[in-house]
């Protein structure tokens, strides 16, 4: 809204608040250097506080998954699942194998649904013909002339045809994807009852009645999705490769140092016993392998290390510190390792509502960090898929035929479907000029590949589940009792990345419960050490390719950078943009500059 000179640069403030086409409300406030076509500074802010950790205190621990599902309206079931995992650990219960296959089928359907609707109906619009025409007419002209390399696979002759198919409502692919997002939600409802807050998930297993029909209904839909994937993956490869080609330097849009976290997902019932003591081992057996990746190198794949490294910093958020004010709930984990006072087990949430001030506190999002023994790393999830594929690829542990990790890539083998033959896709770790690359386009590309990956995994899960039923092992739930005292944790991957739930039970009631979904990691603010959060970091220094002048500026490159992280969190990123005729008429400077 205001123009200022800093170090001789003309900076224009602009804000996007709320950002549309994400789940929840997020705002981004930026200072933009139009002369040098670059974002100079960025602040992200979340505009909502609900207080789950506060109102869960004193409640029955068995209510935890019903309550925490309501944290998120698009991946609530990931929360319910994670909560059930944490409860299983606390109650010492191991569900029947069939229950685990049913949960895996349900969670796989969630990934298939959510990545699909987000990629095509929310992110896709940023790359549609209408948007490109309004932001980069030169690029559209080139797209009209460029033949799609995989036209034979997906049926669109030119890149511009792909873009047109993504136009909201009018585009045929846009509509097809929306319909597909319903089919996959039906698959989800078969396994978990309702989307998005499941009705059939319980600690100890599921209430779903497992019959042959359950798996038939699931498989017939899954095979249609597998066929769909054979078009989706090559089509997105063509689209994203074209952007690199048409706009040299697009590698730097939304680029950030490779600091990725993946907590692993989809347990293998043969190995997962839900004990803390064995967590490192059964974590490595997950169908998506956990890992922390720094500059392209795997730092650890041990869930115990991952757990103990989590720190919650307050930094620029509206909370009072608990350190010094309270005693820790947990001093040592069940293996005898010391637990930090800033670990979620020991966290207290003490809200302190106040004015938003970008020079001090400006968000309801805290700053989760991962301590590697030396530094407090601001890990991101890249929206989920890029971290999951990267970790799975580097670990080289998964091999179930339908998917296989090679140590440097992931192979996805899709069987023959109604009109298409067998097909193998390979996701390779992205690099640019010899360096590992984590940027907007690669986050998006990984999303399409992960859809195919998880569809292939789902084939395995459904086959295993059906086999249990055929063998007559139809029990889906194991009884348990709630202990008076316990500590526990659950780890999985929400659709958009890392998810952990930490619980402390005292006197048979919840004494402490802290869930950490992906968006606090990604949308976190400048922490106590001044380190910016991932969105802020990725948008800062993003080059601007949009052809519009400041008056008509949409901020499309910034929006592409932000949306590549798949922001979700009933939370806000606000971005700020100034100049332009309307903006100058403003009398008061905005909160961005005003204290």
């Amino acid at each position: 809204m205001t123009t200022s000179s800093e170090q001789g640069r003309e900076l224009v403030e602009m804000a996007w608040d709320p950002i549309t086409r994400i789940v929840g409300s997020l705002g981004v406030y930026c200072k933009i250097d139009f002369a040098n076509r670059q974002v100079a500074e960025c602040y992200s802010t979340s505009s909502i506080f609900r207080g789950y950790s506060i109102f869960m205190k004193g409640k029955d621990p068995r209510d935890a998954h019903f309550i925490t599902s309501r944290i998120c309206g698009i991946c609530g079931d990931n929360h319910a699942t994670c909560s059930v995992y944490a409860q299983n650990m606390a109650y010492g219960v191991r569900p029947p194998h069939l229950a685990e296959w049913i949960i895996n089928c349900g969670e796989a359907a969630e990934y298939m649904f959510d990545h699909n609707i987000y990629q095509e109906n929310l992110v896709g619009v940023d790359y549609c013909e209408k948007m490109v025409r309004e932001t980069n007419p030169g690029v559209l002209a080139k797209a009209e002339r460029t033949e799609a390399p995989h036209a034979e696979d997906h049926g669109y002759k030119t890149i511009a045809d792909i873009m047109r198919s993504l136009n909201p409502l009018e585009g045929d692919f846009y509509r097809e994807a929306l319909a597909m997002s319903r089919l996959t939600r039906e698959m989800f409802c078969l396994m978990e009852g309702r989307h998005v807050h499941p009705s059939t998930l319980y600690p100890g297993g599921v209430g779903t009645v497992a019959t042959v029909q359950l798996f038939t209904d699931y498989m017939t839909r899954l095979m249609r999705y597998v066929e769909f994937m054979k078009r989706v993956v090559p089509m997105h490869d063509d689209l994203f490769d074209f952007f690199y080609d048409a706009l040299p330097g697009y590698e730097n849009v939304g680029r950030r140092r490779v600091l990725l976290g993946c907590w692993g997902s989809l347990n293998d019932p043969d190995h997962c016993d839900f004990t803390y003591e064995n967590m490192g081992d059964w974590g490595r057996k997950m169908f998506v392998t956990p890992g922390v990746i720094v500059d392209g190198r795997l730092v650890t794949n041990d869930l115990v290390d991952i757990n103990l490294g989590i720190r919650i910093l307050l930094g620029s958020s509206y909370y009072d510190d608990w350190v010094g004010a309270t005693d820790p709930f947990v001093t040592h984990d069940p293996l005898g390792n010391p637990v930090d006072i800033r670990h979620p087990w020991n966290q207290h949430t003490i809200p302190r509502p106040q004015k938003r001030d970008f020079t001090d506190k400006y968000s309801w999002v805290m700053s989760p960090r991962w301590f590697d023994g030396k530094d407090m790393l601001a890990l991101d999830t890249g929206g989920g898929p890029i971290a999951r594929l990267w970790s799975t690829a580097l670990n080289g542990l998964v091999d179930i035929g339908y998917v296989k990790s090679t140590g440097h890539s992931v192979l996805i083998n899709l069987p023959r479907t109604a009109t298409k033959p067998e097909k193998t896709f390979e996701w390779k770790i992205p690099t640019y000029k010899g360096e590992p690359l984590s940027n907007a386009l690669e986050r998006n590309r990984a999303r399409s590949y992960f859809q195919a990956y998880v569809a292939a995994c789902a084939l395995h899960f459904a086959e295993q589940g059906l086999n249990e039923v055929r063998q007559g092992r139809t029990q889906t739930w194991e009884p348990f009792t709630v202990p008076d005292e316990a500590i526990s944790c659950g780890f999985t991957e929400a659709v958009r990345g890392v998810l952990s739930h930490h619980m402390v039970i005292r006197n048979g009631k919840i004494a402490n419960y802290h869930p950490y979904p992906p968006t606090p990691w990604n949308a976190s603010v400048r922490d106590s050490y001044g380190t910016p959060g991932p969105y802020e970091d990725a948008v800062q220094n993003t080059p601007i390719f949009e052809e519009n002048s400041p008056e008509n500026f949409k901020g499309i490159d910034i929006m592409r950078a932000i949306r590549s992280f798949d922001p979700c969190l009933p939370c806000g990123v606000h971005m700020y943009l100034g100049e332009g005729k309307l903006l100058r008429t403003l009398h008061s400077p905005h909160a961005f500059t005003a204290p």
Partner: protein
Amino acid sequence: MTTPTKSATSKQRKQEEPVIHILWMNAGLSCDGDSVALTAATQPSIEDIVLGVFPGLPKVAVHWPLIDYESGPMQGADAFIEWFFKAARGELDPFVLVVEGSIPNESLKREGYWTGFGNNPDTGQPMTVPEWLDRLAPNATGIIAAGTCATYGGIHAMAGNPTGAMGVADYLGWDWRSKAGLPIVNVPGCPIQPDNLSETVLYLLYQLAGQAPMIPLDQALRPTWLFTATVHEGCDRAGYYEQGQFATEYGTPECLVKIGCWGPVVKCNVPKRGWMNGIGGCPNVGGICIACTMPGFPDKFMPFMDEPPGAHVSSTISEAYGSVIRTLRGFTFRTVDKEPKWRRKGRELLTGYKAPWS
């Protein structure tokens, strides 16, 4: 979300034909699950409504954060929030306001905000949901509260909450009427059953076009055709209930009442309608009914996995039909169909949470 290829000018020209704007505010205390659920609706789907596939349906322009094309900077090109300012200034008529999420009590504290939606141009601070309601409600032709949070407070309004959350009607008043004489329309559900909401929107559009009479609502402002029957009345396990066959473990086909199902006293059509396209649901597919549509949700139904008090009486005498059971249930009904008393306006927080800022 208007028809996409129109340029800005042709959009303005379009406004001369009667267009009903739907302003969707997702900034209440919610999870956005009702927005997401609506994309699952098929009877009708959102495409059906926006593209106007029904005869006689008025033209609509939907301003919905979840899938809106517009995503420009505030006060710049294509700013989404501008529609809300227009409506507040009285420059958008007619419009229906959809509220998603509960209304936090913003008067509990000296400063700051629990939730914001855009900025207040006078202060540069986030504009709160009560501020928006105060500005928009007088100009709205209708208000729909979507989901249990917006209707009655829901999960974020449970005992011990710090924000003093409540439903839209708790905030605006249960006897609130729009300038066109419409009460608030409540579509509860956590989240809403997709078609329940899209169908209610469809009904209201027909009503605003003068083609349908006043929408029939019960005392909790729910559409009667959706929320009169109980879960139990629509449940395909009721045969087991009648035969006295009760599950003691999850995952079996019998009646779930002894392991936590509240179906007999809950108004909801999900077991009958299914979750989407007739698939999924709750007790019909093995999930206990936790009463997510009810004004008393969640407090009056927790712990969810225990047998509801009184269920035992009614299930042991389930062979005895008629007035006995109905009288017993009538008693429970009246309690669970009411919100807990702390969900209301005022400067005091009555949820049991001790505010560190006070």
